[in-house]
């Protein structure tokens, strides 16, 4: 078990490195000198040279990368090119908004999608199954940024039920929650469909397994068979899907944060890319990658905890 954990964490470190290397080279391949961007077009060549030296911009890319890694390990992700504040601080004040958005988005999708899938699987061919089927496909097919725009137009502009932009007043929890509803709805909607379909498919498969017939033959209550037996097995592939889904949600969050002007990490990365604000981009991607890897690791551990066969093979 400990072995497995160490192995996974080691792999995670390698993945982070690979992602950063890829990002680093991409940022240096696109045109635009970050020193000119930071200092303005009228900066003297001396100032640019001084800045470049301070930021190690004159070194080869690989050396720059090693500098960055070395600092990152010590918790220093560099400074914002414009405000000169530490990247960690900039990310720190924004990450909460993104985490709240992603978790709420996935949370409501799980709370609605899993029971819907279960219900559809328990009563295959009935109206609830058909409606779930049609709506799932519809929800999956519409991109989350369109949902965002429509939700914004309908609920904020037209009906005026919910606020349109921002993340709410700091310290005012109910205001913050009311600002969270629309973007979370928008990014979670497709996942309701995904999860409902996934749970339905694996539930249908499991409900046909001989051990479910055994449970019936022993006279267990239908509710116990569905929730305690079938779902217990059928949820395992869904957990993997949810874990990987967090990766997709990070990119959905970028759109939602732009459309709803939420001050989250996604919007921050988007702005930083347009501004060639390299340290912010690097830091943002590092945090996003790390978050994703941790979620996937957590989902794998959850499966191991739920499935003794997986546990035995660790």
């Amino acid at each position, binding site marked *: 078990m400990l072995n497995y954990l160490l192995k996974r964490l080691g792999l995670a470190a390698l993945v982070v490195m690979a992602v950063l290397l890829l990002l680093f080279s991409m940022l240096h391949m696109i045109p635009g000198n970050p020193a000119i961007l930071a200092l303005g077009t009228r900066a003297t060549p001396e100032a640019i040279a001084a800045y470049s030296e301070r930021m190690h911009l004159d070194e080869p890319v690989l050396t720059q990368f090693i500098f960055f890694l070395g600092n990152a390990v010590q918790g220093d992700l560099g400074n914002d090119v414009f405000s000169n504040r530490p990247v960690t601080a900039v990310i720190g004040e924004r990450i909460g908004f993104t985490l709240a958005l992603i978790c709420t988005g996935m949370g409501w999708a799980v709370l609605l999608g899993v029971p819907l899938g279960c219900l559809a699987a328990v009563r295959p061919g009935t109206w609830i199954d058909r409606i779930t089927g049609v709506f799932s496909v519809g929800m999956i097919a519409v991109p989350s940024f369109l949902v965002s725009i429509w939700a914004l137009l309908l609920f904020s502009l037209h009906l005026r039920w919910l606020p349109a932009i921002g993340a709410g007043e700091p310290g005012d929890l109910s205001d913050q929650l009311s600002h969270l509803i629309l973007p979370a709805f928008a990014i979670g909607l497709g996942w309701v469909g995904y999860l409902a379909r996934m749970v339905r498919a694996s539930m249908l498969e499991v409900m046909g397994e001989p051990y479910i017939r055994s449970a019936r033959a022993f006279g267990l209550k239908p509710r116990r068979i569905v929730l305690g037996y079938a779902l217990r097995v059928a949820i395992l592939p869904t957990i993997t899907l949810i874990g990987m889904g967090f990766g997709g949600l990070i990119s959905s969050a970028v759109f939602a944060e732009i459309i709803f002007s939420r001050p989250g990490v996604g919007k921050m990365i988007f702005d930083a890319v347009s501004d060639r604000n390299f340290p912010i981009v690097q830091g943002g991607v590092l945090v996003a990658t790390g978050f994703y890897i941790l979620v996937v690791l957590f989902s794998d551990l959850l499966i191991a905890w*739920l499935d003794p066969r997986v546990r035995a093979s660790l």
Partner: protein
Amino acid sequence: MTDDTLLNIDGLTLDFRTNRGRVKALRDISFPVRKGRILGIVGESGSGKSTVLWSILGLLAGNAEVMAGRIDFEGRDLLKLTPEALRAIRGEQISVVFQDPMTSQIPVLPYARQMSDILYRRTMSDNEKRKAAVEMLRRVGIPDSDSRVDAYPHEFSGGMRQRAGIAMSMLTGPNLLLADEPTTALDVTMEAQMIGLMRGLREDFETTIVVVSHNLGLIAEMCDDVVVMYAGEVVETGEVHDIFHNARHPYTRALLECDPARIADVSRKLPVIPGDIPDLTRPLPGCIFATRCQRVMPECSSLAPPLVPRGTGVARCHLLDGPLADPAWPPPPEVPTVARDAGEPVPPQVRRTAEPLLDVSDLNVRFRTMGPVRARIRGVSDPFVDAVLDVSLDVKPGETVALVGESGSGKTTLGRTILNLQQAAGGVVRFEGKDILGMKESRFKPLRRDMAMMFQDPVGSLSPRKSVRALITEPLVIHGAEGRNLDTEAERLADMVRLPRGFLARYPHELSGGQARRVGVARALALNPRLIVADEPTAGLDVSVQGEILNLMADLQAEHGLSYLIITHNLPVVRHIADRIAIMYLGRIVEEGPAAEVFAAPAHPYTRALVDGVPQPDPDRRRPPAAAIEGEVPSLLRRPTGCDFVSRCPLAREECRMAKPAHRNIAPDHRHACLFPLRKTPELTETA
């Protein structure tokens, strides 16, 4: 309904709605189940025997529709009960033992939880439920049951799982226990143990048992009463002795005569029931067996046969009563009623003096158990297990050699290694004198024309998207059949395996088990091989069909001089087709010799356990309950020191634990690996 009837099925008629139309799966099924007795329902696949079982429980598939009839249990008609009332009976008064313990127990819950769930209707504390579970596991023979109760199903071996399955079904002390093919998924030695266990439980708990099986031996050994089903009808019922010694329905008679375990004379030709089960969407008005009956009369296909009672049961046949009755029917048991396949018995073709076609000597196959890094960390110097250990074996031209062993004996690994599908750790494999072990695939490929494989799962090993024509010519295409007309070849091969040419356009899912097996044979034959390695050639086939395949294999051998290496666990079948038998246990050959001799006078105690382990289809030859050898095949990781069989051998002595016995010859062609063989050795000659 008399007083001693626990369950009475009367006129049960049931349809399945399918896209081919209504399949009339059960038609007018009637029989009583008597209190405290074991009733066996026997029939081939498609007979509806399992459907009867699931009707009793009310757990039929969604497309099933009960058209008529009643199932009376303790004064109530089970077919009219509400789902709630039926659920109250299931698991409490009627319980079930399932066919495959590998799939019928939920893998993610420990036994303690699964068993206390069954007791949910009882007002017991969790602790009392756990105690009850431990007690029942102990009763069915699970050691250390107070700790093993927390195990998950995958932590148990196959035999232990089935024991646990029986414990789960007996936990509530049901009046009626239904068992659906309870030993089909188990090895021979396990089967014998389960039969003993269930008979013992019947004595202790006075439970009535209904067991469904296609295995005549199991039925004869376990049951008091028998119901014979064919194509959705009950054709005959009666007490076990009457059914096995005085069968009155031609189908019962034929079924018994086809069982290889009952056929005393060893010839290569086995009896078969020609034809297939009729199409049940449009069953004939007359007798359902008329299309395959050896005593069919013109009236049989139009006139419903009469139900003729006798002391302990009924039979449904024109021969027994009415204007068509034949007083000479049934003939005495020794007179065969089923024709053996056309053609003379095949004379043995083996040239004993010839150079062996396949010659395996000292072959070893080892599997890695852990990675090299972990092995070093844990200080394991030898992180391997021996799946095949020092095996020597040869197959002469025209000879059939059977490799027999239980699951985990390494027989399949050996077969794969010979065909260069598995790497060996040492030894020599010669084919026609050429050393072929570890040959590169590019060099080995031409040899694959001479060595063909028949796979175990006939349908699963055929691509579902290819027609039979494409499937049987596939080997030709792979090995470059330049200038050959594939259509002609397909027809030639279909004729060879006696598959009607119309079948060439079909797809695997449209074939019956026997037909799919013929396609497998045709594929193996496509390149005119000299050796065919057949992995369980009759597994999953009905008794009446398995004879057809074995006869076909024998004919092909006679015509083409083929050699067979047959890998199987089925001893009764092997006795009829093999010239020589090699018995494997834990990767080692423990005995090898001429088939008849090995059967008649086994030298190794394991061989005797296997031979005795097959339940005899004769209720007069029941074994005492303690006859089965104990325990299970140990894991390769825990290979016993000394003789491999020492942990289960009833005759083990101190010396057996010291060193592995070497192979010794009793006769020039009969050798064994036992220090204290059951047969006296004339001269002790050690072989290398």
